[in-house]
């Protein structure tokens, strides 16, 4: 009889091997899927994973795009991972992302057309604030009323989308926009434009913030008492109580932190690659980031790599659409399979197999 016996602490070796196995399994399954669609499997895998990085024709274009796509994913996922570690499920990062974008854009447009070096920092603060406030709703509701944060944060995504549509056509609508919905294009507003720091590298301030967030969170989780408390709460709640940790404070911290980072990501995106507030400005980063967080095993460095990998699948997927006519949805499926394979192989990290007689 096969049983699973819980390990004391996750085996280090398997923690590193299992994501690799999951990726390989996904490539195999993906290959089969491509073959079923009538596309050459090996070529498809190559186009998705190899070409964007190394192919001479495309790489110079796609490599920067990699960072553009990975930046928000990593930034949001880092924030989410803290809460997930403590069992606090923020599923509404997409909504916090939107609110951050709205707040950030509003801050910028309030000053238009004045130019000043202070405008961008103000936008940054506003963006973080917007996301933070939006996350405070589920935080306070959970702390005070024990309301499930999964559902509240999720419902707030739809509310945020409605607000987005409203401001795109109302409050933030471009007066010089010939009546079309959407705000001014921030890419044309120098003080507000989130430009690439190094030309043609894709590295705008959002990407840089993402790297900074990785470092910051790594330090916090390994060296700061707050990070310790989060880990303790997730590992042994009674010991956390014994250590004097306040669950309420930690809940508000985790949700607030993830909301602020998601808001920042939204703000960087709207003032950079996207350029303006439009009705459908949000592209699902808030949800994909959840996958990135799990793929990265809730570890800052893991998330960094998982974010890059996810971005690669996006870019590679677009390339494969172009080159092979591969349907866009296949990439979504690919990403979903990656997550499920990882969850499946994860069992070996946390449990040991025992084959034998019970009792």
């Amino acid at each position: 009889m096969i049983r699973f016996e819980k390990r004391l602490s996750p085996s280090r070796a398997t923690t590193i091997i299992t994501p690799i196995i999951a990726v390989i399994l996904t490539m195999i399954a993906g290959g089969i899927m491509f073959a079923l669609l009538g596309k050459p499997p090996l070529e498809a895998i190559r186009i998705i994973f190899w070409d964007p990085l190394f192919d001479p024709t495309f790489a110079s274009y796609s490599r920067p795009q990699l960072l553009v796509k990975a930046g928000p994913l990593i930034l949001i996922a880092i924030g989410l991972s803290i809460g997930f570690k403590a069992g606090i499920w923020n599923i509404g990062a997409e909504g916090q992302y939107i609110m951050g974008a709205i707040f950030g854009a509003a801050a910028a447009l309030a000053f238009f057309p004045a130019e000043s070096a202070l405008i961008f920092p103000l936008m940054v603060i506003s963006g973080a604030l917007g996301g933070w406030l939006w996350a405070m709703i589920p935080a306070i509701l959970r702390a005070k009323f024990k309301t499930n944060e999964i559902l509240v944060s999720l419902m707030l995504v739809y509310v945020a989308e409605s607000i987005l549509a409203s401001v795109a056509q109302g409050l933030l609508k471009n007066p010089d926009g010939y009546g079309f919905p959407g705000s001014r294009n921030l890419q044309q507003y120098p003080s507000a434009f989130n430009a690439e720091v190094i030309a043609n590298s894709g590295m705008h301030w959002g990407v840089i913030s993402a790297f900074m967030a990785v470092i910051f969170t790594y330090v916090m989780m390994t060296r700061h008492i707050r990070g310790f408390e989060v880990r303790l709460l997730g590992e042994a709640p009674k010991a956390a109580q014994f250590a004097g940790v306040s669950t309420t404070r930690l809940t508000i911290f985790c949700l607030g932190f993830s909301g602020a980072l998601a808001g920042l990501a939204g703000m960087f995106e709207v003032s950079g690659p996207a350029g303006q507030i439009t009705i459908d400005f949000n592209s699902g980063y808030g949800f994909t980031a959840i996958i990135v967080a799990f793929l990265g095993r809730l570890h800052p460095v893991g998330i960094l790599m998982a974010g890059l990998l996810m971005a690669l699948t996006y870019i590679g997927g677009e390339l494969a659409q172009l080159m092979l006519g591969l349907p866009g949805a296949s990439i979504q499926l690919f990403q979903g399979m990656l997550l499920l394979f990882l969850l499946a192989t994860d069992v070996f990290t946390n449990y040991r197999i025992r084959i034998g007689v019970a009792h």
Partner: protein
Amino acid sequence: MTDMLLDIKGLTKAYPGVVANNDVSFEINRGEVHALLGENGAGKSTLVKMIYGLVKPDSGSMTLNGDEFSPASPNDARSGGVAMVFQHFSLFDALSVAENIALGMDNSPKPRELAKSIREVSQAYGLPLEPNRIVGTLSAGERQRVEIIRCLLQNPKLLIMDEPTSVLTPQEVDILFKTLRQLKAEGTAILYISHKLEEIRALCDTATILRHGEKVDTCIPAQTTARNMAEMMVGASFANPIRSNRSIGHTILSVRALSTKAADPFGTSLHNIHFELKAGEILGIGGVAGNGQDELLAVLSGEVQSQPEAISFKGKPVGHCGPNKRREIGILSAPEQRLGHAAAPAMSLKENTVITAARRMTLVQNGFINWKVTDEFSKNIIADFDVRTPGTDTPAGSLSGGNLQKFVVGREVLQNPEVLIINQPTWGVDAAAAASIRQKLLDLANRGASVIVISQDLDELLEISDRFCALNEGRLSEILPSAGLELDQIGLMMGGSSDRVQETSP
């Protein structure tokens, strides 16, 4: 047809490292109320699990009604006519009484019939139950009724009851005894597991006493004094206490009129706890588990708060302070549950040090954990307390019980507390580690700190404590000097004899 119902011969069961039951034999007759007596760890639960089919004996045999009886599962035991009411109920709070009973029966009748049977049977045995009530709204005593009725509806020949009065009020105990006597009159045998001597003398026909997995004796409680039974339960082995000539100073911790409400039906409320702890003294609090030990530790450690004046440290009220505030001023504690409460099993020893020593040993500066200093402190603990471990990075959960406990105790002792409260310091710990832990506690007191030791091990308490009292059902007995304390006094303080309970002081 003989009177004998269940004949147990030579049952033995061993687990790695410990022999739970060694060659235990006794008989239960029809209509007999047979007590199974012994301290925690004496082997009662293992024995009973074998009778109920949850555990297979290594050797020995049982006969039920003259036929061989070796149940492979509780289902088998039930078909043989053996029913059991566990100490911890398997009940579903959101469901009704009838639904709970139906779930516990192998062939439950239709709802209407079941409701009728429940009403009839429960009335007949003096334990009235309304079938439609939601179990979550019932008191602990009423919940036990659900478990009992569930058993009775299957017409058992032998009813096993595990510590049944631990959750009952005195009135409910009377009602239960009436029911049991009625069952006895009808010929049902009852195996009654308990450590409460007075109850056993009032209710039971015979008593089998276990100690360290072996049967000490089978006696007739009515013809045995409580003192004799206590002696047999606890053993007369007594190491000579190492009395040091320690000078006892002023009162450092003062606890007055401390009462708490139990957090859940299985918890114990504390009633009017009152004691004064002096500098340099070790106060021993004895008692069988489940009488409020965990609750007392929680309220003294700060995890549960009380009225500010209920607990005073050096004259200042601290009842409202949380654990970290108390640590700052010098009140440290070590709870009974090592893994999950005192330490996080998946985290390393180094990380576990931070849990309690962060502030007092300034392991945290400006919010940042100084891992180097923490590591050094951890290494000190490991060296000073002889903790066998590859290093400070080993997860706490992989240490043996004794070593982990040495670490936990060391973590607190090396922080130089003024008051240390420790719950079950050597439970489940090998003899050598236990002796060293006790010596460390003595050394701590010698340095002028005060220690409260809550423990089930009387030998240990009498060895190291200056004064002794017992917790019983949330109440503290009177506090007497340990030197010269007699065994029967102790047994009675622990067993719940009312004339030794502390008067509620003004």
